[in-house]
């Protein structure tokens, strides 16, 4: 074991809960994605519980129980409480910003770096953790400048450091609940009532995992069924049978990650082949892993569970006979639905799939009106001064490098808008 394998000195969070706890999973996921060390203790293991609490049992209603580094305890802990207890919830330092960025994924962080480095007063609001979907990717191998690849978490970490170095602020752990016009600018409201004023807004909120329309999925969330690649669960999958659903790069990366821990990984793809949406390098990689089984034309039609997942029911090819696939964990990576919470109330135009329309699409969108003599700028929505970049934008290329490019590009356009309203 190398020295850097050892735990940090800093006492992390101790989380006591049941394996099938949705709330426990949400906290584990939050802490993992924010890089905060934690210890997970199974409430069903008396010796382990006694070691951290001094008693062998915890009242079930108190679970998940969270012990913060300062020793304080949160019963029935929520992500918001844990975030606040760890000091991760900060107030905006300025009464007004030049740019409010919604989302700290690749597009948002690229915009933050470029905006702040060019002197714009910049704030990023992020519901969970920096990195977005890319942040949970174990290895991005086709991003320029990293011939050996870079993990999504490391890319996000570096981007956050870079953005902060230029003076951008990040307000974490609170989702956006609404945006309203405020003169030529906008006010963003966060879930705890915090208001953030910005002369321009960039929606870089990405996508959330599309829901798998199979009975029982919602009941088992956190209890063997997860959306996304669940970095907090990789170690827990050691020796188990993991099933990944999806045909894109996220699914492929999840397969690669879990294949290092699981006894067996099965990738279920609804389509005819992986080439439709997975990059070739990843197809080659997945195909070569000995403990991975790729099944195309194999949709999930049901789940079998008691208090946690036991099996995934599929249909294969042209057969109508359901097939039972034993499974300890199911990771659903079937693409994204645009995350536009908080955008609906202000009248932002979207396409039929919910993605924000920009540029000429915004000008010609039948459901929206454009108030200015000029055309919307290329990444500008139907509201002057509100821009969109990355996966949330209609017509964007759903790749990390493309998102970074759009986030960077948006800043130049935002400068033009700020000059238009004066005081740039």
């Amino acid at each position: 074991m190398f020295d850097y394998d050892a735990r940090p000195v800093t006492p992390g969070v101790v989380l006591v809960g049941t394996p099938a706890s949705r709330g426990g999973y949400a906290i584990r996921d939050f802490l993992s994605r924010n890089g905060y060390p934690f210890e997970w203790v199974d409430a069903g293991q008396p010796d382990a519980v006694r070691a951290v609490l001094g008693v062998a049992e915890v009242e079930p209603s108190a679970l998940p129980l969270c012990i913060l580094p300062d020793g304080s305890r949160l019963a029935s802990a929520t992500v918001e409480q844990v975030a606040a207890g760890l000091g991760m919830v900060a107030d905006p330092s300025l009464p007004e910003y030049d740019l409010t960025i919604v989302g700290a994924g690749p597009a948002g962080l690229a915009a933050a770096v470029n905006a702040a480095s060019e002197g714009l007063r910049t704030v990023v609001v992020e519901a969970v953790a920096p990195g977005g979907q890319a942040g949970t990717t174990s290895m991005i191998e086709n991003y320029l400048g990293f011939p050996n690849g870079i993990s999504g978490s490391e890319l996000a970490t570096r981007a956050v450091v870079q953005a902060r170095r230029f003076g951008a602020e990040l307000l974490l752990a609170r989702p956006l609940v609404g945006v309203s016009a405020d003169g030529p600018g906008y006010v963003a409201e966060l879930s705890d009532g915090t208001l953030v004023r910005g002369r321009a807004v960039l929606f870089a909120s990405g996508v959330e995992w599309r829901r798998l329309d199979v009975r029982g999925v919602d009941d088992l969330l956190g209890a063997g069924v997860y959306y996304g690649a669940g970095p907090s669960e990789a170690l827990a999958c050691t020796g188990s049978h993991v099933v990944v659903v999806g045909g894109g790069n996220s699914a492929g990366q999840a397969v690669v990650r879990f294949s290092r821990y699981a006894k067996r990984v099965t990738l279920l793809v609804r389509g005819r082949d992986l080439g439709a949406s997975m990059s070739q390098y990843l197809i080659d990689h997945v195909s070569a892993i000995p403990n991975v089984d790729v099944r195309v034309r194999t949709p999930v039609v049901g789940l079998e569970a008691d208090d946690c997942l036991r099996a995934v029911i599929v249909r294969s090819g042209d057969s109508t006979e359901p097939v039972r696939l034993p499974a300890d964990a199911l990771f659903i990576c079937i693409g994204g639905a645009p995350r536009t919470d908080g955008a609906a109330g202000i009248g932002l135009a979207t396409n039929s799939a919910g993605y924000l329309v920009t540029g000429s699409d915004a000008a010609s969108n039948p459901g929206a009106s454009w108030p200015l003599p000029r055309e919307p700028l290329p990444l500008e929505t139907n509201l002057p001064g509100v821009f969109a970049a990355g996966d949330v934008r209609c017509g964007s290329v759903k790749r990390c490098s493309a998102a970074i490019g759009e986030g960077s590009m948006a800043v130049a356009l935002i400068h033009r808008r700020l000059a238009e309203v004066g005081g740039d």
Partner: protein
Amino acid sequence: MTEPPAVASPGAAMSSEFAELASDEQIAKAAAALERNGIRSLLAATGADARGLVDSLLVDAAEVYNNTSQTLEAIGVADDIERSGRYQPLRLRLYRMDREMQRREMRTLAAAPDYVVGSVHALTEGGSLLIASASGSQLGPLASGAGQVILVIGAQKIVSDVATGLRRIYEYCFPLEDARARRAYGVPSGVNNILIINKAITTGRVTAIIVKEHLGF
């Protein structure tokens, strides 16, 4: 090098000659020798003073790696690095990495931090620094990988010469470290790698803070 001597028990180690605090004369001699060897030496009366000196040497936002060190934990420097928010604490960043998927990133990140902060197992009156490591992973950054090296050294670690320093490692430090490793990791330690820094050729790269307190092993 002679064969390592038989390992003494941790209990015996505590009453050893190697647990005695050096005299002011020995401290001054070692400090002067370090300076002649291109290693900046600072003196601190207490661990708290040393903590303040480390704080003054580290630059905000720098990548800082704190070696596993009883000394750093005892005086709160490990806590400062990992929790103050002033730096980029590499231990936290490394801890969150996937040991399977990100092993290469971990290796490269740990190899060349802006700052490495740690201690030594022996400091000779001739100004040589001796550090032992089971895995060796601490030694590369100390020798050359890190941009800056800050070492906090309790005055009980000052010895007369390199041979005595090696004896200190085998007879005194190793039993204590072995016991600690078994408790912390469930595996024994080993004097598998030893670094001896006789001289620093890059001016200003290495700073040794000698503390007039018994700190660490």
